[in-house]
Every structure is written in C-alpha cells, then in structure tokens.
C-alpha cells in the first residue's frame, strides 16, 4: 500500500497547471482531492511519474450563485458544498447527495471536480449533474470549452475531457421544485448498489411542469433517463405514471455482478430506489 515514486507539483494558477500538463504529457496526472487516485496509486494500478495538485489554485475553490445561475469551482470540497446555505437554496439536491458520499473525513478532502471528472460510474455527482443539466467547463492548451454533463461520459473512466485539459468549473441553473437523491448502499463509505437523482416541478394545477431523472452505478456511465423524464412531464405524476417511468428507465440500465450483488438484484433494487426517489421528490415539489 505504498505508491510508486512520483514528482509532486503544486501550481498556483490554471495556466500554470495547464503548462505543466502540456510539458509533462502522458506521465502526469492531475490530482484534486485524491480519494480515487491515491488508493489506485497505492495499489500501484496507477503509477504516474508526476502529480499536478490543484489544491494551490484558489480560483478553483468557490461557490457563486447569481442571476439564477450556479457556478462551482472544481476544487470545492464536498464538505463546502454541504456547508453552503446559498447553494442549498439554489440546488438542495447537492447537499442531499453530498451527505451520502463516503464519510465526513473523505468529504473534507474529496472535491466536486474530482468526483465528476474521474468518470467512475460509482461516483454520485455525475448523475446529479446530468439531472441538473449542468455544464462542465474545460480549460486546455487551446483555450476554454464547455461540455454538457449529459454528453460528458463515454464509458467507465472515459470522458469527453482531453488528457491535456482540466475541468475547472461546473455551471447549472438554480432549480425549483421537488428534489431527491436516493441511494442504496451496503454501508457508510460504499458506492451505490443503486442510486437515483430526481428533480420534479409541480404546476399550480398539480401538473408536472418539469422532470429530470438520472441514475448512478447502474451502467458504465451515469444515465440520464430522457424518456422516463418526459413521460412524467407529459403524463403528470401518479402511481401509474411513476411505474411507467421507472419501467422506461430500467430499460436503460446495465448493472454488472459484483460484491454488491448480482445484476438481477440490482435491477430490482434500482426500480425500488427510483420509485421511492420519485415519490419523495414529488412530495417535496
């Protein structure tokens, strides 16, 4: 459980970090909170020769809510997300999700940028970002570009981020209405057996005016469930429509057997979790 040798770099600005990344090339890895990368390095499954630590870049650590838009710097920790009342007002699902990630010690170090950029299907924030229809800001040698969270994930640990880019910021619109992040896990600190992010808006007449559903750890990427979402929006929220929406979402999932259980169990649990999460979001809408 001791990492291989590596050089440690702590740039103080994004351009400096980008320059290091360009210079050092394939042998360098960017590190945020380190809670995925360091264990991998300790197992010597990853042996980068250079670590570029983003902790010294102050501009990446901020939460800004203005004009209905939320901007979160990539190096903002889960604990800071939980602690921000401003963010809770704008998107309460973030706090609810962050509180279900690992344990307090991990949340003091783990960052939202690391969580969404790593491409680990077990991470919770990617599905929440898809649910929020967030945009990720990427900075690279050729400048800045943004990619929608719903377009970002390609396969496990493969994302739209180029190796020479750094994910610096997350943007999404403040949301109204009901929200819920439901997660089944074996214990504190575990990844989800199945988890669901749901946002629902209720019109004055009781109709569903907006719906968004995404799932965690049920395929090799987070899953935005477009059909299930639009089904609720078109048909309103009732036990029948929830059942149809869940059935639709379940067609998308491809869980795999692991120590959390066989795929058949996960499929069943996922439907239960999604159903209860929709119900809770609607109750809060």
């Amino acid at each position, binding site marked *: *459980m*001791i990492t*291989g*040798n590596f050089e440690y770099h702590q740039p103080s600005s994004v351009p400096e970090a980008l320059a290091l990344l360009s210079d050092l090339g394939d042998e360098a890895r960017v590190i945020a909170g380190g809670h995925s990368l360091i264990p991998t390095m300790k197992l*010597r499954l990853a042996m980068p020769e250079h670590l570029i630590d983003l902790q010294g870049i102050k501009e990446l650590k901020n939460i800004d809510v203005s004009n209905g838009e939320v901007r979160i710097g990539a190096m903002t920790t889960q604990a800071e997300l939980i602690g921000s009342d401003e963010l809770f007002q704008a998107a309460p699902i973030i706090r609810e999700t962050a509180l279900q990630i690992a*344990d307090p010690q991990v949340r003091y170090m783990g960052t939202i940028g690391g969580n969404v950029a790593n491409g680990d299907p077990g991470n919770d924030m990617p599905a929440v970002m898809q649910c929020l229809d967030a945009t990720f800001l990427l900075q690279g040698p050729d400048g800045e570009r943004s990619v929608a969270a719903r377009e970002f994930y390609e396969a496990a640990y493969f994302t739209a981020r180029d190796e020479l880019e750094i994910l610096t910021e997350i943007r999404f619109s403040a949301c109204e209405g009901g929200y819920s992040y439901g997660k*089944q896990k*074996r*214990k*504190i*600190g*575990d990844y989800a*057996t199945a988890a669901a992010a749901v946002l629902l808006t209720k019109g004055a007449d009781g109709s569903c005016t907006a719906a968004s559903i995404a799932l965690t750890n049920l395929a090799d990427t987070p899953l935005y469930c477009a059909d299930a979402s639009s089904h609720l929006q078109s048909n309103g929220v009732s036990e029948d429509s929830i059942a149809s929406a869940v059935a639709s979402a379940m067609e998308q999932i491809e869980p795999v057997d692991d*120590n*959390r*259980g*066989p795929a058949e*169990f996960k499929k*069943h*649990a996922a439907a*239960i*979790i999604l159903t209860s999460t929709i119900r809770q979001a609607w109750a809060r809408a």
Partner: protein
Amino acid sequence: MSATAETVQDRKAALKGLGTSRKRVEDARFTQGKGNYVDDIKLPDMLFGDFVRSQHAHARVISIDTSAAMALPGVVAVLTAADLEPLNLHWMPTLAGDKQMVLADGKVLFQGQEVAFVIAEDRYIAADAVDLVQVKYEELPVLVDPFKAELPDAPILREDIADAKEGAHGARRHPNHIFTWEQGDKPGTEAILSEAPVVAEEMVYYHRTHPCPMETCGSVASMDKVNGKLTLWGTFQAPHVVRTVASLLSGIAEHNIRVVSPDIGGGFGNKVGVYPGYVCSIVASIVTGKPVKWVEDRMENLSSTAFARDYWMNGKIAATEDGKILGLWCHTTADHGAFDACADPTKYPAGFMNICTGSYDIPTAYLAVDGIYTNKAPGGVAYRCSFRVTEAAYFIERMIEVLAIKLNMDAAELRAKNFIRKEQFPYQSALGWEYDSGDYHTAWNKALEAVGYKELREEQAKQVEEFKAGNTRKLMGIGLCHFTEIVGAGPVKNCDILGMGMFDSCEIRIHPTGSALARLGTISQGQGHATTFAQILATEIGISADDITIEEGDTDTAPYGLGTYGSRSTPVAGAATAMAGRKIRAKAQMIAAYLLEVHDNDIEWEVDRFVVKGAPERFKTMKEIAFASYTQAIPGVEPGLEAVSYYDPPNMTYPFGAYICVMDIDVDTGVSDVRKFYALDDCGTRINPMIIEGQVHGGLTEALAIAMGQEIAYDELGNIKTGTLMDFFIPTSWETPNYQTDFTETPSPHHPIGAKGVGESPNVGGVPAFSNAINDAFRAFGLTHTHMPHDHWRVWKTANKLGLHG
C-alpha cells in the same frame, strides 16, 4: 454503629475493587494518541522488510530472480526459501501440529502467500523492490471447495505430506484430508435418529471471515550480536509462547530471547499464531546485524493472516412430538486453507466445537469434524470467541430454530423446555464437558419479559397479514438466542498449546509505602487488564486499585503465561491474581498479628486491614503491614511482601446469555434494520460493569458485522474477492444499532472470585441472534434456513426464492 458501618463502606469504595465501574486507566494514553504500538518502535539503523506475495492460489514456483531488486539502491537483501533452508527456517510449525511455509518452497498454495522477503533501508524502497522481484510460476489447478477435495480429479495441495497416513490428530484418508475428530456416541445417536418421532436436518454454513483488528500484525526484531541477545517486539497475544517457539526454531537459548508485546490495537484471535513475517524479521536481523521491522498492510492482513470460521455443519436433531430433544448429530466439514494453522489446544483439533449441545439437556450426541486443505489462507482462529465456540453456538441455535419449525412450535418455548435446569449443575454434557453453573430459565424469562416477547409475536403475526394483504413490503424478524460459552482454557491435564500447559500467572510486589506492582502472563489488546486486574487485587489485598500498577507483555519481567484469547484472562490469570493476593494476605496476617501482639487466629480481615476480633479499635492496615515488612525484623517471617501464583484451573467456566434481536426487513431491497437488541449476559461475578458493557457493545458490533455482511470470499480461481475494507464489512457508528444490556449473576463455583469471563460472549451469542432474526422473518413464508452473511442481495435472494417479489 451506623458511623462505623459507613466507614467500612467508605473504605470499601475507596479501594475501587470488584463491582466498581472504574474508568479505564489505559484510556488516558489511548485517547491522546500516546499509545506505543509495534509500528511506533523506531531503533537506530532499523531496516524494513516487505513481502513478495503470490498472486496465484496454486502454482509451482519455477524461478525467483532477485537481481533487479538487489540492484535498487537501499536494498540490503532479498530472502527466499533457499536462503532459509540452511537454517531449517523455510518451514515453521503451526500451533495445530502442522507445518507452514515461511517462504514459498517450490510452490504456492494460496493467493497472498509469502514468496520472498525484501529488506531495505526504508519501507518505501522495500515496496519498490518488491515490484522488482521476478517470480516465474506454473499455474496448477485450484481447489476452493472443500467438498471437492477428495474427488478423483482433485489437485493434491500438500505434496510435502501427500503420503503421510497419520497427521497430528490421527489417521488421514486422503492427501487433502487433515484429520477426523469424533466425539460422543455415534451408534447411540444414530439409533435415536432412526427411532425418534421427529428429526430435523439442516446444513448450517458459518462462512469464512476475519478478525481484522484495527492494528495489523507486525514485529521488530533486534539481534545484538555482541551479547547474543535477541529482542522481539510484536503483535503477540501470547508473548511467552512466542519466546519458547522462537527459541526452539532459532536455536537461541530462551534466556537470550526477550519478547515484548507493546500496546496492541485489537487481536480478536488474529494475533495468537506465528506468522512468516515474525520469522523473517528475526532471520533478517540475524543476517544483517541490524533491527528489522515488518508491519503488514490491511490487504495483507485480510488475505494472509489467520481467518476465522469456515465450517460447514450438517446437523440432525431428534425430538419427541412435544419438543423434548432426544439427540443431536453433527458432521462438520472444516475448510482450513493451505496449512492447518488453527490456534486450538493440542488435543482439540476442532477446538471446543463439542460444546455444540449448547444450553440444552441433550442426552445423546455425536460430533465429527473433518479438517480439509484448500487453496486459501491458513488460520481458523477463534475470532472473539473461545475455540470454535461461536461455530458451535451458531449451529445449535440454528438447529433449535429448525426444529421449532418442524414441530410448529414457538422457538422460545422449545428452548425453555430443553434448558439444563438449575439443579442439574454441575452438568455433564453428552459430548464430555462439565458445565460449572447456570440458571438459564431465570435469564431467559427475564429476557422475554424485557422485550415483551408475547406482544412482539402478536405484532409480527399482524405484520405478516398486512404483508399478505399488500399493505406493506416489510417483514419483522425476532431473533432468539440462548448461548452457553466455554472459556478459560484451561486445565493443564487436557489443555496445552505446543505442549505448554494452559495455566496462567501473577506475580505481586507490595512496595514499602503500600502501593503495588502486579505482573501477569497475559496481554491486553484492549480488554482493559490494567484496570480490572487491579480491581481484583484491590479487593483481595485492601490496596486501592489506583495504587496498583499492572504490567504484562514483557517476557523478561512478567511471569510465564499462555496469553490472552478465548476469554481466558479473567478465568485463568484473574484467578492467579486472586490467589497471589491471598498469599500476600496470609503473610500480612502473620505480620499484623506480630505487630498487634496477638495470635494469628485472633485477628480477621476487614476490607483493607486486619482487626483484632472483638476489639475493632485495634487494627493494622495493609499499608502499615507493608511498611513493617520492609522495616522491622519480624521473628520467623522473611522480610518483604511479595507473592507469585501459577493457576491451573480445575475446570473451564461457562458464561451464558439470553439475546433477543428485533429486525425490520425490506423484502424488495434486502435492507434490514435492527429495531431492538437486548443482551443479557451472565458472566458470573462482575468485576467492572462499565468494562463489561463496553465489551458487550464491541462484541455485538462484531457479531452484527459477521452476520450481516462480513466475509472472506474467494472466486473459483482462489482469488480473494473481499480483500479491502470497501468490501469487507466493518460497521461504523452509523450501522451500529442501540443495544440494551442486562445481566444475571451466577458465580462460577470453582473460580476464586466466581468470575467467568465476558469478552467473547457477545460475539458468540450475537451472531445467532442476528441471523435468527433474518431467518425468522421469513418463517411464515416457508423458509427453514438461509446462510449468512445476510447482506442486502442475499436477503433479497431469499425473498425472491420464496416468491415474495410477485
């Protein structure tokens, strides 16, 4: 008069003796991070060792190339079996009469096995060098299923003893067979089974798990080549035995070896055995002339050091139609892994599995245990239990439930009907034990009343109706358990480890000013010995526990003892402490009589002093007596006030308890929630109620872990699937339910203070209580038995098989 009575009470309270919830004296340093563990030891010029381990479960070692590792700056040596062979240390004896490779000798037999030992100037260089050692393997067929061990196409694992027809425990019928151990009356039991009106049968599997102490195993060896002395610090639950073994193995005279167990961060049986790392650190220190430290990491601990359980227990229980048990039959297939490295008393290759008649008056019984080799890590230690007692308790407490289902009878009633009655003690069990004391009915009734058992059953029945009506997706389980432990090994006439009788010891020195030092042959790993042994002594010799220092773990200073495991410290070393204290008091009586100018028989002991009978104003306190023993010439009495006692217990002790768990289970997600857990323990005389409660909380939490998810699982290729704490379940405060503790107090008649031991009871009783709750929840839907661990997917699977998902 009342003033005098008060004074006696005050003086008694000041002693902080037996029955006092005295705060743990150890915690001042532990809570401040000031403990001193093996990995805290830093010596000048110390080197670090690290293992190259096998990634294969079964393979021949074709070659080991250490040249690239040796070329790395800072690497001092790389040891392989070939280097250890001239010293005859490439294999070592196990505590179970088998032998184990220290480093791979021609082949590897489990994933994680030690292949080479790298010694370097620091642990980082050592880790880098491990990666540079090139080992060439030829993979062999893997055996992970003990039931396939004797099939014609089974690979032969232990080529070193393939032809040996006799093992340490009798005849072997196959190269992969270790022993068969039989107890009880086979024909008698079979006759009862064939004739009995009711016979219930079940295969009960107690899965493989691991003690996983917070501190992993490690050692620091320092060979002083000038004076020829070897000092060995290590995570040892039995330091004196380690010294003897080290002497026998290395040829170093025993007086030239000092073994020290410093603070130990939990043992739970994992630190009883001898590991290759200890041997390699010693050899490395001898070879290099420098101190060498070896400390394993978490994954190494889980995958290579001693596991626990892995017993397939096939049971048959016979009864009359109204539920009187007539006989019990058990055949166990015991998966021991690649080497038989159980830590049991020599004559008990399956430990005290023959306590499997439990709390019940079962007239006839038969037990057979087959030990089998597989391509898994060696071990089979008593994880927070006396030797195999958790397996035995789980077996009988499941069989009782299975029988209750067969009889369509309430399981609480079935238990009460078959308990050994109070007046039957001392009770001779069908499988050979003499239970010392017990009052099971009183404990059981207290437990049933405390939880409102009748009302719980009514609620459960209602919930089943609601479930069937489609109004809820939750079921309720009531997990019952009445366990009887057998601890305090043990009488030297039938208990030994590597030939060493399982006595224990205490040596007491009273200082001139009336404070004391007591040293014992045991070693605390968190049990709070420094607190509780001082309390035993305080009551015996009338010196406040606060004025008594307890020392353990240094073989140069402590008297010889067999160590701490199997809840033996209080029953054995605690008894030695009381007996040594009584020797002190006997001498003190002579001194006091002389000082008071009366005959010995004219004075009597009162809390902290000897008082002249009929003249309470004339007395000498222990403090005064101690001072006199060093300052006055007393005719016929040697100066000083010291005593030593080696205690050979006349019998085991038999703590017991009644546990009830109420669980709510979601049949769709498989998630279960402990609504209530009531634990009544009877550990005889209670030394420190607060420490007992802490022990019970800790043991129950480990039981929760084991029952609900903790396992060491292998795939069909012998790859360990649960080798990190991501998958190996250790409950946090979040997963830990609230526990309601209670007690009755039935002293042991043969123990000097009546104490029986408690540290392991909650694990022994907790596992069946949790498991029975899960099983019970599905009883109304036709379930007889489902195996642990009861993690979400397995509970879901149970519900699914019963058709509860529509």
